[in-house]
């Protein structure tokens, strides 16, 4: 199935017949030849707006094989049963309880415990006790499922989060309830987890020097808010630069990316307004939307038909019950979705937004710097006009190797935010050395530092992305998302494989991120790689070799359509498997 010139395709291939055994492909599957796939594929929201795209838009979410899905559910079932069993054992003190407990004075007292009766004697009447802080089922998942594989998260590091990173070795003697640091450091672990897209997380070079200079001059804190007396000249300089970088009239910077969303959306919309939000939007957008008091409706992930239907219905039918027309409609989308690796269909979103007079809030947390020929994010990637996006939001945490967030847009918007943003009024402003890091890294991307370093980084990242994604697909993994997205989710599905993959990779000196429920749908557990311009070809090849090995070991190669390796690469038998029609 070949996308037409300038067209786009997004497909989920359905199974024709046959079965999958342990993730290996047997015969009976539709091979992804043009004719067969077109006949058997379920075409998901292929758009009629192919003309809007200036480049092919290839995004794939291969359907979960049925057997894998069933086994995954069975896996969770077994885990849950064991969880109940162990809870039962803990309750009767047969198994030792490792978790922290409520303070004795505040415990919900049970009638059986005699020793506490004395305390209670003072009160004649049987009084109410403290209501337990957590509901039992609330922590069931944490206690019985998460705890088994907890060692895959929060791994402490003790170096720059660059292409390679030093991880502090830790060990648990009580089944992950607590960790002891052995004092050893695992050196030079290949870092596939940090959002260091352009490789600006460095402790040497111009950014670090500039930041150090400002640190010595200004100190680290500000001790006031922007509106009071925490508005430094550096902040103004940064905002002016961000506006130029984005190609918008004005911009404003905030101290935390998460708070940029959650504290500014309420300033923009309120009661009587409608928010249309992608179902996979980040927690900060969801929180901001909730805090705003506006009505929230969810459209299917990156699905333009769903969005258009909601827009149409909203305008035609107005607010529920009162039937008044909506005051305004705000569409919330992200540039790159950090768990799916998909890129927003921005040309279509903009077309819809114009057609229905809605406003667009674009969160470029992961895409700014990481996409587009000049690193200006998803707008640049599609070759669109930044004027068409009403609110351009992004963070400095990822590509710029700093922290904080920004909002860019028209002068009126920024003026309004300067006066009404919760963040400007109540929150401490950005730390000066952090500001300086952003300024120098941004200037570098813009080429204002007199080198072509920034441009090379952007290109390197794009190359790394294409190469890494293609190789993984050739190996037969199910990889989600857009072929240009530096966020690469590799599907693991089964709960046991989450832990196994993370550990096996660390054993092979590669740090990866694994995610499961509740960050993903229950059966779609995955590993996620974040590519970086700092990754060299050698690093990527090493990582790919190990992933391939672990993939075989854990039988993760679920994909039923194999890519034929491109001819410009030496023939590699590990990545090539003929499938029969």
């Amino acid at each position, binding site marked *: 199935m070949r996308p037409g010139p300038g067209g786009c395709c997004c497909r989920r291939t359905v199974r024709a017949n046959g079965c999958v055994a342990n993730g290996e492909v047997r015969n009976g599957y539709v091979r992804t030849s043009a004719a067969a796939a077109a006949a058997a594929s379920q075409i998901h929201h292929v758009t009629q707006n192919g003309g809007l795209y200036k480049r092919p838009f290839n995004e794939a979410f291969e359907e979960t094989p049925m057997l894998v899905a069933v086994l995954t559910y069975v896996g969770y079932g077994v885990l849950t049963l064991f969880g109940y069993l162990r809870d039962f054992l803990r309750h009767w003190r047969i198994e030792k309880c490792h978790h*922290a407990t409520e*303070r004795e004075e505040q415990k919900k007292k049970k009638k059986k415990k005699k020793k506490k009766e004395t305390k209670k004697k003072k009160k004649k009447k049987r009084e*109410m006790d*403290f209501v337990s*802080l957590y*509901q039992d089922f609330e922590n069931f998942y944490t206690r019985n499922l*998460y705890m088994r594989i907890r060692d895959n998260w*929060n*791994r*402490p590091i003790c*170096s720059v*989060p660059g292409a390679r990173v030093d991880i502090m070795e830790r060990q648990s003697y009580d089944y992950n309830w607590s960790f002891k640091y052995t004092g050893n450091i695992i050196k030079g672990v290949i870092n596939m987890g*940090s959002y*260091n897209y352009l490789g600006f*997380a460095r*402790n040497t070079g111009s950014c*670090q020097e500039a*930041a150090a200079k400002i640190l*010595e*001059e200004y*100190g*680290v*804190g*500000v*001790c*006031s808010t922007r509106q*009071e*007396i925490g508005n*430094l000249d550096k902040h103004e300089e940064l905002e002016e630069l961000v506006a130029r970088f984005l190609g918008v009239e004005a911009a404003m910077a905030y101290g*935390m990316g*998460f*708070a940029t969303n959650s504290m500014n959306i309420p300033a923009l919309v309120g009661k009587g307004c409608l928010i249309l939000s992608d179902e996979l939007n*980040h*927690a*900060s957008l969801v929180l901001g939307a909730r*805090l705003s008091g506006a009505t929230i409706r969810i459209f299917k992930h990156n699905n333009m038909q769903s969005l258009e239907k909601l827009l*149409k219905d909203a305008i*035609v039918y107005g607010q529920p019950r009162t039937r008044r027309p*909506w*005051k*305004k409609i705000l569409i919330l989308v992200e540039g790159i979705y950090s768990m799916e690796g998909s890129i927003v269909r921005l040309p279509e979103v903009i077309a819809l937004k114009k057609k229905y007079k*809605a*406003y667009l809030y674009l969160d470029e947390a992961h895409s700014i710097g990481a996409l587009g020929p000049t690193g200006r994010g998803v707008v640049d990637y599609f070759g669109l006009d930044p004027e068409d996006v009403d*609110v351009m939001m992004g963070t400095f*945490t990822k590509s*710029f*190797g700093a*922290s904080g967030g920004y909002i860019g847009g028209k002068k009126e918007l920024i*003026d309004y*935010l*300067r*006066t009404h943003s919760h963040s*400007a*009024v109540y*929150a*401490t402003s950005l*730390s000066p*050395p*952090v500001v300086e*890091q952003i300024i120098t890294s941004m200037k570098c991307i813009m080429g204002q530092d007199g080198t072509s370093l920034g441009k090379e980084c952007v290109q390197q990242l794009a190359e790394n992305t294409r190469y890494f994604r293609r190789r993984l697909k050739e190996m037969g993994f199910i990889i989600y998302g857009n072929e240009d997205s530096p966020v690469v989710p590799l599907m693991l599905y089964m709960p046991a494989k989450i832990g196994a993959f993370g550990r096996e990779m660390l054993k092979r000196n590669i740090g990866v991120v694994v995610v499961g429920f509740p960050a993903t749908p229950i059966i779609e557990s995955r590993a996620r790689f974040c590519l970086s311009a700092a990754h060299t070809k050698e690093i990527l090849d090493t990582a790919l070799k190990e992933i391939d090995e672990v993939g075989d070991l854990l039988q993760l190669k679920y994909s039923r359509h194999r890519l034929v390796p491109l001819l410009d690469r030496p023939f590699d038998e590990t990545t090539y498997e003929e499938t029969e029609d």
Partner: protein
Amino acid sequence: MATATEQWVLVEMVQALYEAPAYHLILEGILILWIIRLLFSKTYKLQERSDLTVKEKEELIEEWQPEPLVPPVPKDHPALNYNIVSGPPSHKIVVNGKECINFASFNFLGLLDNPRVKAAALASLKKYGVGTCGPRGFYGTFDVHLDLEDRLAKFMKTEEAIIYSYGFATIASAIPAYSKRGDIVFVDRAACFAIQKGLQASRSDIKLFKHNDMADLERLLKEQEIEDQKNPRKARVTRRFIVVEGLYMNTGTICPLPELVKLKYKYKARIFLEESLSFGVLGEHGRGVTEHYGINIDDIDLISANMENALASIGGFCCGRSFVIDHQRLSGQGYCFSASLPPLLAAAAIEALNIMEENPGIFAVLKEKCRQIHKALQGISGLKVVGESLSPAFHLQLEESTGSREQDVRLLQEIVDQCMNRSIALTQARYLEKEEKCLPPPRVVSGLETSRFIWECRLEAAEELEKRVLRPGAKSGRLQESPPGSLNALLAWSAR
């Protein structure tokens, strides 16, 4: 007998049926059908189907005009043009090109430009770079973060501490991690904006009590108890929280913690304490309001504070027992979903803690200075100082409001401007007037710092401030006749 009669009637009827003429039967049949039809048919016609045609829909879409994304901001909006500070915001500050003595930052301990703090931050910067490039869960946990958490827990004498990368997000994330829909939160009316947002995010039932009024709180708790007795099953799963601030950001007053703890055990509600202003200020060692009152810190379920005031870094932390705090590592939204604190800021906070631990004397110095300034600021005509004498943030408020908030703000702004002209940087406390639950009256906030080197010049400045600015009458003699609080006089003066 009865059965015989019945039978007879039945026979009669059947016979009559046979004998009846056909037209009669047909007529009756039609009548019966008619009745059935009447019974089952609706007597009125349903409204015409109201489905819109495609064309009508298009017209509606064409017609709809949304409001602009943001309303225009008037050019003279008091908050539109920020003061620009060039250079570091330390005790000498250059505001809009004019060098002033800084009375406006919350740099209480003077740690902002402390060379030791800077050196620690610099060392960290050289080791780790600036950003962390990830949330705590995904390779964003640095050894410095673990150290800082450890140090904070030790300093506060609690089991565990958790750090956030943004002060505002700390309490705003902590509250919704515990309090869910259906739970009840008792909260002081004067609670700061971060608490308000946290409560809003939690979607719990919020009960406001009068500022620092324990009788009012007890009344609400009692009401709730009566309510609970009506529905004990629900009460057993309804968590109760009391959310208070140690030193109120909006009023400068201290919460009556001992009474609160009593109420906590009496009514079984957990206490969340926000200590952003009191941490590093109150108590013999700067541990905040618990130390100030000598209360066992374990009696407070959760303490949250930011590291942006006394510690002069960025970020915030929560501390308490592991049973409580650990929950946030998976449920605190601002913790899980945000990039972690840049290591250099964490290193700065550690060094600041070191300094606090090494020099416990600074807290007494700070207190003494607060008391002096508080005294010095008393009895200024037209202005009154609100809040506790040991609060390092002074709130100057108009003794009598002019009646309109706008006017008050303008008047206070003129005072601030005048002070600025005389090289004293003050600031008005800013609020989002429409968003605040209980909007505090406009006021000037001034932060005080305790750095030993600058104390003399600072006290001088305070006297200056008192003499020249806030008590203009003392010099001009003209205002002395006017009664204290005469706004006209102040206005006349500030207009000069």
